[in-house]
């Protein structure tokens, strides 16, 4: 970034939608339904002053639908109100105070309908999606087992506050709707705005601000208010600024993931059978449920060698706001289950958790739980050994167990206990679904006559530092000065659609596409006349590689791996928990930039600890000492690997094991607070 831009950014010179005003501008607020679970009969709106308008579903010039994978979400309620706070309409007016006052007088009448059936019942009305991974013969595997063990694990997803809020400003200039907003999925916003206002996609011009990392459902949620704002601007023919309420009705609803395991072990502690049933609340419409559930099933099967597996997952609908996808789109959360189980199995078979893992991890030639063949040796055993050495895991773990076992014989109770835990995970930087809304990605690069290079991404990189990294990389590759390289994150007249920038797709897939198009340009550069344009598009894997319906095959082409060890200190009197150290060993191919990667990892550790400790943020004073080891593979064909979700997958289970050891209680669910430990319950 050049100096002036950076200075301007620090000095507060960058404008956000809420900073925008224009002469004839009107304000808009979303009117949400306080009541739910019924058919909307009437919305009672008080008599509005002349300059005010209440826009309902039927007033939209275009479609009232947001086509997301697995569902079509209405922008405004048309018939059934499924959750509290569902948008009923958009109220516009010149004065925000009057707007809020009248907004609070709007009432709605609904005719009650039955709620979604409870999660425990398999009812098509509430079950959004069911997925199953099957391999071998489960009964035979169980019969062969010497020991059958069970485990039940629960994780409540944390609330991750996200800024900026959904403020949106829209104005019309020469037939185009200019939209200022915050988004990390511009393609979706453009598509939806065009649908809702019944205009062409070319007529929507987006100006968006980059913001911090988007962890979960915020990836798509700004698209709904954006579409409504454009629709209002097209009806009113005036600039509209939508103000998002402070106490947004999407306020935190605790969501649970439950996983029940039954596992069979032979006399050596090897898995003979693995059965799991998992269920998750998918919210009111179940959007993105198949991708999330597939990933959940995949990771809850782990990567342990077992011939007989049955993993069944269910995403059920409830009368709560839609919230998928969560951070990591389900993969990290499933690892919590299987790694908790792995620690439990190791314990029960009297084996050190690291040794148990290395005994059971799939080897080259084995089949993955999804029946795809393991073509290359996984780096995990070495990573586990390495992290054990560095953290002194084996000794500390054995010592922790010893202290707990001999506790009764001690005259004096120690003032504190320590515990240590381990877990592993992987990440695949691709979507498992073949839905183009998710997977589409393309990069168009043009070398202009004056020597400037322009790259159209149609996507917002997940971290702001990535643009600077790309510039450096391209500059080196093509010997073009960085000042002559520019990125266009979104082009109004471009029909290309791109999926969301999550799962490290920007650092992996986009970097690959940028490299490819630059290489092509380099080949033609001194042979053909300028300008030269090259486009690289992401090609999805074939159905023979991965069948997303039957969940058979090799789900990820180039996975990254992580092993984590977490150290925990527990104060005996107050049961206060501290996490002094975390060791991480990561194998993710080539790393674009080590320091950015470390930053990324640090941010994920913070989120993972929020998940463990029921906190909204982890203060620097309680942030652990981090020991990160990148195991870069020097081999030639290495690709840039993904990082997103690796830490989130490994840290929670390692933390829970460490707390179990330190507290002497069997910890089966997260998050945890001192109060839970004082009560001796979890």
């Amino acid at each position, binding site marked *: 970034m050049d100096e002036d831009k950076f200075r301007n950014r*620090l000095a507060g010179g960058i404008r956000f939608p809420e*900073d925008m005003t224009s002469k004839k501008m009107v304000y808009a607020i979303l009117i949400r339904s306080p009541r739910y679970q019924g058919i909307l009969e009437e919305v009672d709106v008080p008599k509005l002053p002349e300059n005010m308008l209440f826009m309902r579903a039927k007033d939209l010039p275009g479609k009232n639908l947001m086509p997301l994978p697995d569902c079509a979400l209405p922008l405004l309620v048309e018939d059934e109100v499924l959750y509290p706070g569902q948008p009923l309409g958009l109220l516009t007016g010149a004065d925000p105070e009057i707007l809020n006052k009248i907004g609070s007088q709007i009432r709605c009448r609904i005719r009650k309908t039955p709620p979604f059936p409870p999660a425990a019942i398999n009812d098509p009305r509430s079950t959004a999606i069911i997925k199953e991974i099957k391999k071998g013969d489960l009964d035979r595997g169980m019969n062969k087992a010497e020991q059958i063990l069970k485990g039940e694990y629960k994780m409540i997803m944390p609330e991750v*506050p996200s800024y900026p809020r959904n403020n949106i400003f829209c104005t019309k200039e020469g037939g185009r709707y200019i939209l200022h907003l915050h988004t990390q999925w511009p393609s979706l916003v453009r598509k939806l705005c065009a649908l809702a206002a019944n205009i062409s996609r070319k007529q929507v011009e987006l100006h968006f*601000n*980059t913001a*911090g*990392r988007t962890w979960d459902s915020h990836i798509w949620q700004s698209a709904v208010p954006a579409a409504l704002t454009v629709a209002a601007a097209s009806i009113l023919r005036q600039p509209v600024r939508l103000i998002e309420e402070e106490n947004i009705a999407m306020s935190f609803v605790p969501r649970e993931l439950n996983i029940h395991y039954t596992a069979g072990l032979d006399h050596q502690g090897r898995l003979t059978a693995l059965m799991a049933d998992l269920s998750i609340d998918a919210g009111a419409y179940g959007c993105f449920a198949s991708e999330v559930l597939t990933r959940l099933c995949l990771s809850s099967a782990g990567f342990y060698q077992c011939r007989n597996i049955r993993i069944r997952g269910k995403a059920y609908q409830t009368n709560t706001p839609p919230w998928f996808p969560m951070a990591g789109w389900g993969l990290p959360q499933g690892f919590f289950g299987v790694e908790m189980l792995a620690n439990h199995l190791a314990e029960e078979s009297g084996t050190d958790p690291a040794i148990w893992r290395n005994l059971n991890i799939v080897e080259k030639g084995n089949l993955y739980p999804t029946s795809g063949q393991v073509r290359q040796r996984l780096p995990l055993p070495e990573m586990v050994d390495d992290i054990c050495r560095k953290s002194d895991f084996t000794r500390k773990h054995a010592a922790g167990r010893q202290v707990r076992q001999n506790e009764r014989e001690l005259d004096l109770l120690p003032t504190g206990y320590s515990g240590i835990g381990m877990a592993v995970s992987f990440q695949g930087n691709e979507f498992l679904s073949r839905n183009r809304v998710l997977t589409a990605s393309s990069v168009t690069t043009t070398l202009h006559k004056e020597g400037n290079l322009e790259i159209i991404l149609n996507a917002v990189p997940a971290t702001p530092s990535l643009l600077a990294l790309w510039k450096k990389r391209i500059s080196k590759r093509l010997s073009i000065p960085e000042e002559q390289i520019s990125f266009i994150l979104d082009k109004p007249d471009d029909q290309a659609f791109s999926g969301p920038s999550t799962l490290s797709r920007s650092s992996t897939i986009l970097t690959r596409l940028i490299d490819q198009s630059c290489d092509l340009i380099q080949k033609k550069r001194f042979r053909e006349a300028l300008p030269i344009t090259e486009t690289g598009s992401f090609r999805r894997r074939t159905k023979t590689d991965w069948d997303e319906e039957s969940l058979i095959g090799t789900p990820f082409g180039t996975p990254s791996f992580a092993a984590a060890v977490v150290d925990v200190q527990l104060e005996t009197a107050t049961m206060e928990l501290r996490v002094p150290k975390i060791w991480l060993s990561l194998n993710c191919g080539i790393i674009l930039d080590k*320091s950015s990667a470390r930053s990324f990892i640090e941010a994920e550790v913070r*989120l993972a600890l929020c998940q463990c400790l029921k906190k909204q*943020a982890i203060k620097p004073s309680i942030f652990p000492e981090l020991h990160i080891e990148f195991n870069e593979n020097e081999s030639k064909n290495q690709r840039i690997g993904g990082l997103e979700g690796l830490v989130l997958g490994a840290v929670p289970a390692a933390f829970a094991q460490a707390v179990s050891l330190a507290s002497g209680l069997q910890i089966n669910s997260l998050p945890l607070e001192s109060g839970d430990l004082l009560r001796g319950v979890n």
Partner: protein
Amino acid sequence: MLIEFVLNDEPTSVEVPAYKRLADVLREGFNLTGLRSACGKGYCGLCTVVLNEELVYSCMIPVFQIRGKSVQTIEGYAETEGFNDVFEGFKEAGVHLCDYCAPTRTLTTGILLDRYVRPDARQIEEILSSVKCNCTPYETLKKGILLTSQIRQKRLKS
């Protein structure tokens, strides 16, 4: 209610209801948009301003409380040498902040480093916690803070 105060070194006044939040008054009445009104409940720190040399959350301050006092926002701070120190420090350390929190982070870092010229570990933690964000890594930020403090010390010496 008429409230007279000093804003970014200039005496000024505003006629607003006494209960209005300082954040809204500064943003709407004076177009000082570097401070963000994000959580609106004293959690995120993104609306921080300097009130009589103290950092305060302007979303938590009813405007009548600033009567006769002096308020500084990032727009005013950007004109000072202190701002330059932070700019140089952050630039050198490669601190990548998002547009949204960058101004407040700059203000809080600069002001707290006035107080802690040679910050120790605890003081660095305080500076880090002044803005709540789960996306900027502490490591690079710490580097940025330390570099800023060195640049400032050098400037003050010369």
